C-alpha cells in the first residue's frame, strides 16, 4: 500500500479491519493532488527504494516491521490533540 503521510494511519486502520494488520505501507509526503511533474518525480524517487524492499523482502519480516508503525502515529496525534 502507498499512502501520503497524512493518510497512513487511516490506511493502517483499514488494513487491520481487513485482516492485514502487517501489510507494509510505503509513505510519500502529502499532498498527492496539485503536484507539478518535477515534484511527482522527486516524491517517486524518494520512495522507490522502500517500495523495492517491500516487493522483495520476506512477508513475515515486513509484517513485523510495519505492523505497529502507523498505529503509534495515530495515538500520538490523539495524545497531542488531548494535550492542546
Amino acid at each position, binding site marked *: 500500500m502507498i499512502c501520503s503521510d*497524512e*493518510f497512513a*494511519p*487511516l490506511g493502517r*486502520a*483499514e488494513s487491520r*479491519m481487513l485482516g492485514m494488520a502487517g501489510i507494509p505501507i510505503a509513505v510519500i509526503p502529502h499532498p498527492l493532488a496539485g503536484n507539478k511533474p518535477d515534484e511527482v518525480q522527486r516524491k517517486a524517487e524518494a520512495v522507490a527504494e522502500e517500495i523495492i524492499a517491500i516487493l522483495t523482502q520476506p512477508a513475515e519480516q515486513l509484517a513485523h516491521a510495519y505492523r505497529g508503525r502507523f498505529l503509534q502515529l*495515530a495515538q500520538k*496525534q*490523539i495524545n497531542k*490533540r*488531548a494535550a492542546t
Partner: protein
Amino acid sequence: MDFHSDKISLNDSLEAVNDWFYDQGWTDGLPIVPPTPARVEKLLAWTDRDPQDELGAVPPKYGIATIEKLAVNAVMAGCLPEYFPVVIATLEALLEEKFNLYAVQSTTHPCAPLVILNGPIARELGVNARYNAFGQGWRPNATIGRAIRFVLLNVGGGVPGVLDRATQGQPAKYSYCLAENEAENPWTPLHVERGFAADASTVTVCGAEGPHNINDHVSTAAAGILTTIASTMAGMGSNNAYAFGEPILALGPEHAAILARDGISKEDIRAYVFAHARVPRPLWEAGGMFGMGIAEDLFRNEAAVPLIRKPEHLMIIVAGGPGRHSCWMPTFGAMTRSVTRAIALKSGTPVKSVQEFRC
C-alpha cells in the same frame, strides 16, 4: 444491570468528569452528561433489544455498536430516554452499505450525517421542523444528532485529524437533525415518496454539507423561485457538480406554497433543477474535480453539466417556518446514497409511538 462497558470512578464533580472525558478524546469539546449506570439504564428501558445486541461494526475503526454503547453515547449527548429508539434507527440506517459510512467518516470532504425525521414520532418527541429547524434551540434536534456524532467518534474512531480526515469540517458535525415540516408540505412528504405509510415514522440519513441559503424575497410566482433555486445550486464547488449523487433541496413553506399554488409538482421542480442547475462546460473543465475520472463521460455532448444524473435524484423536503428562505445541501456525491428506515421494533414491526418500546 450487567454492563459490559468499563466502569470508571472519578471525583464526583462535573468539572472532573468533563476534564477526564475530554482528555480521552471522547467528546465534541462541549460538556457531556456523565453516563452513569443509572442514566444508561433509563435509556435501555426504551428499546425491546438486549443491551448486547449488535447493530454492526462502525467504520473506520470498526468498533462494534452494541445497544449498550449507543445508550452510553446518547446519555453523554444529553438525549432524553425516549429519544433512544430514534438513535438506534438512525445508526441502522447509517450502517446500510449504500450509505458508505466508511467514506463519509474518513473523507476530507465536510459531509456530516443529516438526519431527517418523518411521521408521528417526530411530532411526539417535539423534533423541530419549523423556525430555525436546522439551528439551535430544540433538545431532540440538538441531542439526537450529537448522539450519532459520539457513536461515530467513540465506536467508529472518527477522531478529527486521525481517522476523520475532514479538511475543514463544518458546524453540522456537532448535530444535524430535524423533522420535515409535513403540515406545511403541499405535496407528498419524503417518507411517503419512499414507499412508507403516512403514519409510519422514519429516519432518513444523507451524507451532506451544511445548508446553503436560497433567498428569494421578491418572486410572487413559481418561475422566479425556480430560477433562484437553480442559480444558487449551479456552482463548481460541490461534489455533486462532478460526482452527482442526491443533493437535498429543503423548501421553506412560503416558497413551497407559491410553487404548489402555481401547479408545480415535486417532479416539475426536479425537472427544472436538472435542466437549469448546470455549470457551463468550459467553466466545469477549469477546476473543481474535473479530470479525476469520476464521470467525465456523462453529458459529454451537453453545453452545461447538471448536478444530478437524473431528475429523480434530487431529494426535496419542506422545512422551516414563515419567511422567504429555502436552502439546499450538497452531498458527498454518488459515493454515498441516502437511506430511509422505519423506526421499528426488533422484529421489524414499525411503531406509531415510542411508548410501544417501553419495557
